């Protein structure tokens, strides 16, 4: 799920940036530092939408660096248990398949793939229904439900299921060929 929240961060800025563009520098550094990171609590920081407030800088003794507390608005993405997501399959193996929804990696175990889909090894490993009408392979887009998340300090990993109503392939690159 995406959230638009306000976060705070202490930014250290090198004295050489002190000048008329200090604020720009600060923001660009903030963006560079923060976007794409993941915190267990808030999830992935997708984008910074604005800087709310830059506090008073504090000069670090010895280094000359200045620490600014910066409040910024950002869009974060955090998957939750039970959430339905659309994801792109990145890898298929006999244990199931991995899919990605943006920065989040989701694993769908073969136990959580409908029983009528079977693993077909070969050049393009895939899961196919017995009649061949539905196929999950790399680059397929699937809709899945997250049933578990593991949140590390720097990574969020989910397991999902497509063994439910209205879940499964939504577009199949193989079908077009």
């Amino acid at each position, binding site marked *: 799920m995406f959230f638009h929240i306000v976060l705070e961060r202490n930014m250290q800025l*090198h004295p050489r940036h002190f000048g008329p563009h200090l604020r720009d520098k600060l923001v660009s550094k903030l963006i560079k530092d923060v976007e794409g990171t993941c915190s267990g609590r808030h999830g992935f920081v997708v984008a910074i939408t604005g800087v709310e407030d830059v506090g008073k800088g504090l000069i670090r003794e*010895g*280094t000359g660096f200045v620490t600014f507390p910066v409040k910024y608005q950002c869009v974060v993405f955090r998957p939750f248990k039970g959430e339905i997501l659309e994801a792109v399959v990145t890898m298929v193996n006999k*244990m199931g398949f991995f899919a990605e929804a943006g920065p989040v990696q989701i*694993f769908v*175990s073969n136990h959580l793939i409908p029983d009528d889909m079977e693993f077909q090894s070969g050049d393009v490993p895939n899961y196919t229904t017995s009649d061949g009408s539905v196929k999950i392979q790399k680059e397929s887009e699937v809709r899945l439900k*997250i*049933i578990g998340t593991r*949140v590390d300090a720097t990574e969020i990993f989910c397991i999902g299921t497509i063994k439910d109503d209205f879940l499964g392939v939504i577009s199949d690159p193989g079908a077009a060929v």
Partner: protein
Amino acid sequence: MPRRRHEEEEVEEEYDMEEEEEEEAEEEEERGGKRSRRGGGRGKRSRGVQSYIDDMASEDDDADDDDDEDYRGDGRRRAPKKMKPPSYIDDMAGVVEGEDSDDDGSDAEPANNCVTAVTCAPLRSISGFIDDTDAGAEIRDNNVGRRPIPHSSSMMDDDDDEEVEEIVRRLQKKYETEPHFDYDEEVTEVEQQALLPSVKDPKLWMVKCAIGHERETAVCLMQKFIDRPDLQIKSVVALEHLKNFIYIEAEKEAHVKEACRGLRNIFASARPTLVPIREMSDVLSVKSKSVDLSMDSWVRMKLGLYKGDLAKVVAVDSAHQKVTVKLIPRIDLQALANKLEGHEVTKKSFIPPPRFFSVDEARELHIRVESKRDRESGEYFDVVNGLQFNDGFLHKTFSIRSIRIQNIKPSFDELEKFNKPSDDLNEDVASLSALFANRKKGHFMKGDAVIVIKGDLKNLKGSVEKVEDDTVHIQPKQPRLPRTLAFSEKDLCKYFNPGDHVKIISGVQEGAMGMVVKVEGHVLTILSDTTKEHIRVFADHVVESSEATTGITRIGDYELHDLVLLNNLSFGIIIRVLKGVPGKPELALVKPREIKSKIDRRTSAKDRYNNIVSTKDIVRVVEGACKGKQGPVERIHRGILFIYDRHYLEHSGFICANAQTCLLVGGGTSSHCGNAMHTANPSFRAFSSRIFQPPGRLPPRGSHMNSGGRFGGTGSGGRGHDAMVNRCIKIISGPYKGYRGRVKEVTGALVRIELDSQMKIVTVKRQDISDTAAVATPFRETRYPSGVEIPVHPSQTPLHPIQTPTWDSGATPIRDGMRTPMPSRAWVPMSPARDNGEDGDPSVWASSAAYQPGTPRSRPYEAPTPGSGWATGWGDAAGNPTSTNVPSTPIGQPMTPGPPSYLAGTPSGQPMTPGDAGLDLLSPLIGGETEGNWLLPDVLVNVSRGGDEVSHAVVKEVLPDGSCRVSLGLLGDGDELIATANELEVVRPKKNEKLRIMNGAMRGVTGKLIGIDGSDGIVRVEGSLDMKIVDMVILGKLAF
């Protein structure tokens, strides 16, 4: 025994026989020995020995004689039996048994280990007693012919009821008066001790007999005793668990021999062995507790073909100590077929794998399969060559002793194999409960989700509210069941939902963590966090985990994903270790002790376009086996990158590749920095050659620098083949401090040294060693400049792209510290590039920050120095050997010089010193910092050696290599020893104390401290009235 017996005999005069029996039994028991574990088979004496014993066993339970009713019966039965000694003996045994189970429940487990005991001694006295008793005589007469009557009930219709009743009355009376005579359970320790055999008691002799005939021999002896009452033995014991031996209780060895003579099962040649008194009680105590073996429990085979195999108990025959178990047969049908056909069967050494038996297969091989119905169970068995099969399983009967009963932990795989696909593992409550038998304490915790697996409420889910021993209170999840329910722990099993993050706490996979993917009853499928593989485990072996880690991440000092050094050539990341052979990753299972050290350095390498790659940079592999993979660099070592690609499932996603085959992908924050550094390098070099040469740089040194400043880095920082190898060195700090040795090998910052004093090779840090006095210059050279010039290397030594890393980060500040004070002023124009470099690389800043004027104490730099050739040279050149400008800090040294020495020493240096001005600038600064390195004789110092121990000493002489000969003690009257400069600390003078100025223009002058003004001391120079204001740091207290 005899002592006891006498007492008993006296007692017997008063009590009747029953009482005597009880006594006897009690005594037997209290002596710690189960004299008899079998007995009670009244009225079946005519049977054979074997059956007699078994019958007794089966009647054990009957031998309960606590209540009056029983006593009555017993009395009646026993009284007659007294006449016939054998029956008496049996009875006694029975009583003993009964007593055991009554009084001493803990000891009296109903006999897996059986003891056939025959106690003979009381017989004589008893028979005599009986003869004297009217009642006894009558009873005897009446009952002689009735002896074989098997059931006690039949005795009730005895014709002389009155007589019996009289006895019974007497008995009852006796028990009324002294009801607890022998049942007193509170036997004190002392009393117990008193019952142990003493020297006065008969001895126990161990006699060898024919194997398998122990019981028979015992019974033979008993018979012999009956036939020949003159035998002097007291008892015979055959222990079930002891083959080949029986015990005979007798006073003398001769008695034993006498008794044994002529028995064919006892070897006449074997001498009876005396059992030491201390061990006598052990002989008859039963140690192992019997475990009740019930049907459907899991066991393992101890021996034979099926050794270690899991088996399920089908039937238990406790009388025969046999168990019928169900096994997965290991049968080589082909071999069996050959055998049945009469072919030569070659004995094969291999054990056939377990496979279910198939009748069809057997028939194909023309093995005759009979179908037979078991009489008892009514089941049909396929019988092949005497082996019974049912449903593919082999049913076989084993002795209880050949199976392991306790602590069976069937693994999931085993159980899965055992249960044919048709069976539902979860329905098999017995097997589940067998699993639960091994639960650890505190298995359930508050809040655990559980499911009921047994009883009416089966499949009820709930959460644990409270645990009391074996009882677990759960709060059902049913809304209509608001109250908690109590269950036995055994009736519950943990329950998990898909998506739960769990940790496996027992079994083969113990420690692994993962997410539950599927729940099938009590079996969970878990996706392991680390390996991304499926693991199937029992729900019972799993706990929910909130840890955000990935299972076991530590072994000792090593953590998952640590980069470790295995030996000189290989290093790896711990995943299950991935070895660093580029492009050809090897997986090796490495035990912690094989890991030499952790590589814990931040280094960088260069990719194929010479971009500096440091950790966390994203790179793409453009060559080799892993071509196309992309990911952040996790570790770097010797030009090999360990890249983490989350799409790559093997090896936990780690790829290792040579840095040269990789391409830095833009976007990593520190990549710019790397490049910037790169470009900045030339200017660095400019610095180093300009600034360092001038001030005090001595000719050899300077030239060296010029010829190849970075050479030092190459040598010291790189592989170990530098000048240090094979040098004699001394270890100056760390655990091996003080040892001398020869350098075997240099690996990065570590040096392997063969100690002279001990036959071993140790690894120490490079900065912990110092050359012994005899060292040649190059060594020092290598060390010093390398510290100075680190930044140069990356660009200058393409052959060794990652030389720098081998330098401890600790080295950096040195470099900065030395360089900067001046360059920051003098050379700023030269280093514009450097500024760029600082962007986003705080480490550079941190290090540069470190030398702010206040910071660089020279102490840290002291370590590597002493014992240098050039120092000596310099001293000489200065013509001032005694003044000992000992360069324990090479940095300091150039700064210090009294002008004369400087001029003298650096003729060649001079032309190179545009920074001469800077010298002045620096010298006070640094000179001020370098405390205690310009020692002079007679100065009082503190010597710190080997840790915290600090002692006063007086400098006697300053040796040219920078170390000092000092004498311990405040007055220098103690032992003399040689101390290196960094072990010494000058004692600062206090007011009115004599001192010597150790530095500056007034070096060597003695005086007296008049006062202290801040950091300056006011000194009155000796021999004059001059007052001088001198920095305190260059003042040293004089010893006298």
